[in-house]
């Protein structure tokens, strides 16, 4: 029979052991996901309307990345595999990662597991910027082969964020309930403007629809390079505040009492997550459900701590969107593409319902 002190020290030892074990499992999981991600990128570049043998795909990738000598692969498969497919696959992975991480952050800041990157109007801002560019006929203009749309989308996202933060301030303090309300107001207003532009400009409707539903059609390396800096900066900002984000989910009062500089940290997180969202939306349009479903799923797998949650969400968001885009490319016969947002909504909607059903307790709607 153990004495009480012995039992306690045994429990403490067990907890220490379990914590170390769960850390090991997490690291192994990360390694596994890294491998899966690399394989997925390779596999996805081999899939497409133009049938290219795997051997050619691999050597084209090697040549494109500068690993193999120039001239081993014909021009056409090289362009298709490296310039068209690989860039698109990489971009879809990055956008998915950004949306997954941004979703985790917004859910944490707003203390609401139903929030996503679009709750506070950042995405609507980006969409409005892009739609405006299309309607004004600026869509064909080209700067370094990029087009003006991503610039205006990014600008729209940041302006929307600024107005939401300004509207959401009460007596100099940012409150989460007013933040959500301000977000809804701004998003609704911008959606109405988008609808108005659609009604006025019949010709641009199909381009706008593709944009509003989200698509990677015609995207290339230039879009990767365009969004990457914002994405990395956003990722750094939110990851460096992961611990504070954990504490913020206890509410503003307790976060203060635990020593968190609430205003400053929340602003950093908000800007970081908005940069991630803007980086994603500005090159792909509005892709729903990734930012909502992925953090949910990951929270069930690795728990609520945001450090792990964000890293895992980056991987699963990336993988999810990468394969969704493959489906969007090849699902319809005759070479027509679906907007990838349609795929994520069709898959994500029912999946989300399943997650909700599986949950014990009623903590979703707080």
């Amino acid at each position, binding site marked *: 029979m153990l004495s009480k002190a012995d039992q306690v020290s045994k429990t403490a030892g067990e907890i220490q052991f379990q914590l170390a074990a769960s850390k090991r499992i997490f690291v192994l999981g990360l390694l596994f996901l890294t491998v899966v991600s690399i394989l997925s990128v390779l596999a996805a570049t081999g899939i497409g309307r133009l049938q290219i043998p795997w051997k050619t795909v691999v050597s084209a990738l090697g040549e494109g990345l500068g690993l193999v000598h120039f001239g081993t692969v014909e021009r056409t498969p090289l362009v298709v595999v490296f310039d068209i497919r690989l860039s698109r696959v990489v971009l879809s992975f990055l956008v998915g990662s950004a949306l997954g991480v941004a979703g985790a952050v917004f859910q944490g800041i707003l203390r609401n597991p139903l929030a996503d990157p679009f709750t506070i109007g950042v995405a609507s801002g980006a969409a409005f910027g892009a739609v405006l560019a299309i309607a004004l006929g600026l869509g064909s203009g080209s700067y370094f082969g990029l087009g003006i749309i991503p610039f205006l989308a990014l600008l729209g996202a940041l302006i929307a964020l600024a107005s939401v933060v300004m509207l959401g301030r009460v007596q100099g303090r940012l409150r989460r309930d007013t933040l959500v309300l301000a977000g809804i107001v701004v998003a609704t207003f911008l959606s109405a403007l988008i609808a108005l532009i659609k009604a006025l400009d019949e010709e641009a409707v199909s381009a706008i629809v593709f944009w509003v539903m989200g698509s990677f059609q015609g995207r290339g390396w230039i879009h990767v390079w365009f969004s990457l800096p914002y994405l990395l900066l956003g990722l750094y900002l939110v990851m460096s505040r992961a611990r504070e984000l954990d504490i913020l989910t206890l509410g503003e009062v307790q976060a203060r009492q635990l020593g968190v500089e*609430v205003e400053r940290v929340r602003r950093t997180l908000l800007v970081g997550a908005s940069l991630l969202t803007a980086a994603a939306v500005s090159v792909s349009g509005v892709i729903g459900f990734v930012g909502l479903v992925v953090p949910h799923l990951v929270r069930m797998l690795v728990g609520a701590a945001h450090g792990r949650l964000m890293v895992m969400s980056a991987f699963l968001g990336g993988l999810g969107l990468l394969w969704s885009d493959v489906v969007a490319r090849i699902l319809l016969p005759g070479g027509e593409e679906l907007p990838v947002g349609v795929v994520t909504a069709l898959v994500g909607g029912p999946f989300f319902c399943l997650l909700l059903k599986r949950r014990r307790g009623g903590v979703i709607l707080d």
Partner: protein
Amino acid sequence: MIRAEGLIARYGDRVVLDGLDFRIAKGELVGLLGPNGSGKTTLLNCLSKVVPLHGGRVAVSGRDLSEYSSAELARVEASVPQQLDISFPFTCIEVVLMGRYPHQQGFGTDSEEDLDTAMESMRLTDSLDLAKRPITEISGGEAQRVIIARALAQRAQVMLLDEATANLDVAHKTEMFDLFLEKNRQGTTFVCAMHDLNLAALYCQRLVFLKHGRIAVDGSTVDTFTEETLSSIYETEVRIIQHPDTGAPQAMFVPGQRASSGQM
């Protein structure tokens, strides 16, 4: 340890605390009493710098509250809130480790020492076996013990408790206050807002009664825990008896006053 001068707090136009002056010495165990809405929670929140002052000043350890950074203050003062409002399934050990945040620098990962401190705090509050459970899936009383452990893990000199034991069963309630008393004897200062008068009389050396945002009575438990004081503060009839073991005064309420006072 804590000094307040002319402390005023307002929500909009409503004055909640109207010019409080008091001192709390290091190592005191003070009970903060008073009817609903008398300003107990607001006062604690002023002391932890969550509610801004509209007048007067508060100094902790001789230093004005405004001179503290959030983390500095959290190393001196630990707060236990009335209730927990959490929608994410953090494990209990993760929640207790949040109490180590003010001691961590920069990116701050949990060190061996942080983990030891957290587990020791959980052991003291009898919540160590909850360590790996999600806090969203345990009872209110269990969560309260975890939150007390989090405050202990802050290793602060001052503990501000807001109804910290309200959700606990009788055994855990006394166990927790025995723990507070032990910590108090080791030098920790306690300010406990409470509704349970008899618990306050059992453990606190000094009682501060708030009413309508002012200090109505402030003094030692023996002097203030009287039929006259309690009856006038709570506006109901109270009788005092002695605790059979400790001799501490205990309040007994008299039923049926609503009918007899003819307020119907």
